């Protein structure tokens, strides 16, 4: 069980953007570009249509493939996940049909040979990239919350954390930036804890609703206000609120780790009062 208790970043919204996998399909059909222009120069309408459409379809297949690979990466990293959309399968079908069309109408091969080309492309796509995972990473409903509710809560919370990070990018103060980064790291760890053991969602739900959203509102509010006016008092108020949020986040995380049955409702009320007093909520 120990490996499930280690803090881990919740990855629902982080995409594997910079992997080179799947780029091959962008480069393979490059010969169709000169083929299109040559056909255009010679006035071969069918050649222009087939080569240009073929190139566009290969680009579409490559786009679907990359999106499918990214979705698969997120699925593999998450402990709870719905199966991704069948984008890799879609890419394989588009690539196969396009290859068959190019071999038949573009290269002038007989139809049976063109079908072999299509089959070969489909096989190549399957062997290189596989197909999309179809199995749901199921969790049992916990404390009256259905699987979809838990998943939705985690996704919404992750989106709020990304919102805090974006607001942080607009704040020009290294000390406050570090504080906000720490808060986001702890929040990600809390989501990872809930993901590992969804029973925690009952205790964490109020935290997710009040604290996390409060943290986003206060950060976005400060990011907007401090660009217009530089005020020592405003900065100090913001610093105080961040300190409270950080300590509350740490406490919540600790309680989840200790599986403490005591809720943080009282602390949450204190924070809500402070946020109101500071004029943030």
């Amino acid at each position, binding site marked *: 069980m120990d490996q499930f208790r280690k803090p881990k970043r919740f990855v629902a919204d982080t995409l594997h953007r910079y992997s080179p996998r799947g780029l*091959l*399909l962008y480069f*393979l*059909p*490059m*010969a*169709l570009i*000169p*083929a299109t222009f*040559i*056909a255009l120069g*010679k006035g*071969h309408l069918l*050649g222009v249509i*087939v*080569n240009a459409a*073929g190139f566009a379809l*290969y680009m579409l297949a490559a786009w679907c493939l990359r999106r499918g690979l990214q979705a698969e990466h997120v699925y593999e990293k998450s402990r709870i996940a719905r199966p991704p959309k069948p984008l890799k399968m879609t890419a394989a079908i588009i*690539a196969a049909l396009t*290859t068959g069309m*190019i*071999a038949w109408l*573009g*290269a*002038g*091969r007989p139809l049976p040979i063109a079908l072999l*080309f299509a089959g*070969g*492309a489909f*096989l*190549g*796509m*399957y*062997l*290189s*990239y596989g197909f999309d995972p179809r199995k749901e990473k199921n969790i049992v409903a916990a404390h009256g919350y259905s699987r979809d509710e838990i998943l939705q809560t985690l996704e919404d919370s992750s989106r709020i954390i990304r919102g805090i990070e974006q607001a942080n990018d607009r704040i020009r103060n290294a000390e406050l930036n570090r504080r906000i980064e720490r808060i986001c790291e702890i929040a990600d760890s809390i989501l990872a804890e809930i993901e590992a053991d969804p029973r925690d969602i009952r205790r964490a739900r109020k935290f997710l609703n009040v604290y996390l959203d409060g943290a986003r509102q206060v950060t976005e509010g400060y990011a907007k206000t401090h660009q217009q006016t530089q005020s020592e008092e405003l900065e100090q108020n913001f610093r105080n609120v961040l300190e409270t949020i950080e300590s509350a986040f740490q406490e919540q995380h600790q309680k989840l780790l200790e599986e403490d049955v005591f809720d943080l409702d009282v602390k949450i009320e204190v924070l809500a009062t402070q946020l109101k007093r500071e004029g943030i909520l």
Partner: protein
Amino acid sequence: MPIVLRRLLGFIILVATIGLATCQSLVKAEPLTASASAEASLTSRTQAR
């Protein structure tokens, strides 16, 4: 089959099928210069006879 071998095989098949189909389409659009000039000279000789 090991994953690396599977991907390598897939890569070869992909390059062979898509690469061949697209290159043949290009060759059909623009016949090779040597064969095109030979064909042209053969046509002109036939016409001369």
